[in-house]
């Protein structure tokens, strides 16, 4: 009975909300920083180790995307650029599921899925290190 009551409740589309709020806010923050002549501090990980961190290049990627320069965006961080471009699709998917009263899908509970996530993270990081971003 409780499960049925839960299924009748429409959940908050958190992913869609985060994308809808995050993308304009991020863009506004970039423009504000530019207008104020301010820059984000350099990456502490790179300063400490000499190697780029897993997200090094994302600020420059965001700046390039804001200027509509897709090639430069993919140059600075291909994985993050792809993620940002796919974000509206993910938001639409989440909003549709929420509207249809479907819960967030369960994350697969397998060792393989965990290895894929860790491997993808390390691969994206390795790519940035090899390219010397």
């Amino acid at each position: 009975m409780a499960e049925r009551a839960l299924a009748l409740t429409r959940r908050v589309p958190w992913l869609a909300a985060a994308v809808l709020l995050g993308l304009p806010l991020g863009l506004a923050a970039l423009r504000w920083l530019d207008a104020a002549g301010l820059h984000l501090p350099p990456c502490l990980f790179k300063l400490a180790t000499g190697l780029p961190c897993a997200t090094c290049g994302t600020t420059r990627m965001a700046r390039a995307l804001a200027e509509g320069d897709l090639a430069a965006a993919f140059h600075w961080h291909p994985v993050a650029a792809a993620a940002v471009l796919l974000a509206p699709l993910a938001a639409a998917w989440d909003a549709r599921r929420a509207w249809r009263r479907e819960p967030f899908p369960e994350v697969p509970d397998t060792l393989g899925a965990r290895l894929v996530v860790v491997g993808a993270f390390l691969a994206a990081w390795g790519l940035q290190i090899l390219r010397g971003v």
Partner: protein
Amino acid sequence: MDPWAPFRLALKPLEGFKAEAGGGPAAGPAFLRMLAWRTGLGWLDGALSLWGFAAGYASFRAMEGPLWGRVLESLAQVNGEIRPEDLKEMLTQLPALPPLPVLLLWMLPLVPLGVASAWLHNAVWDHGCLWLLRGVERNRGWRTTFRAEATAMWAGSAGVAIGLLGHAPVLGLLLAPVLAAVGVYFWVLRGVALATFHGCPVWKGVVATLLHVVIAACCGCGLIVVAWQLALAMGGGPAYG
């Protein structure tokens, strides 16, 4: 509204979180309860921090206070070529802070936004890390983590309230190590909440919050976040939970 409820939860976390997991509010109401508590305390904490910072910055720009006397004395001994007048002129070139009331007005939307962002950030990262550690059971998904994080941050209101002592002159400095320990306690409490709500061993919840930091540190900006959290913990800021 019982002002001691977060303190009771913080003092008996295992029983408290178990009761909250069983019969506590759902994710939305738990978030709103946490937001109401943390926003009020966050404003107070932020106002006191701004007040102290603005006073310190003003005296730094004006080369006033006992510290400047010592610095100028030492500079005269080390290198007599640096003239205080030149130094003073250079410091007056530094931009002045906006008036305190303006800064406080900015805090009205920024504090709740910061609290909500911290909750969302912690929930997403901690859930991912708990999943990596095989701590997320079937049928206990994201909603459970959102509830756990909201409840942990609500308990963290007690930490923020205690942290306000860090703003007291002299006493705040003396209490800094104790307040740092309080910050660590409320960090561990977040892991306990995660584990209790998900029904997994406590160590998995605590390690998930630490793994969160390690992965964030690999993302560079994580180091800034860690430094910020430590600074806030030392100064009694909203680093709790």
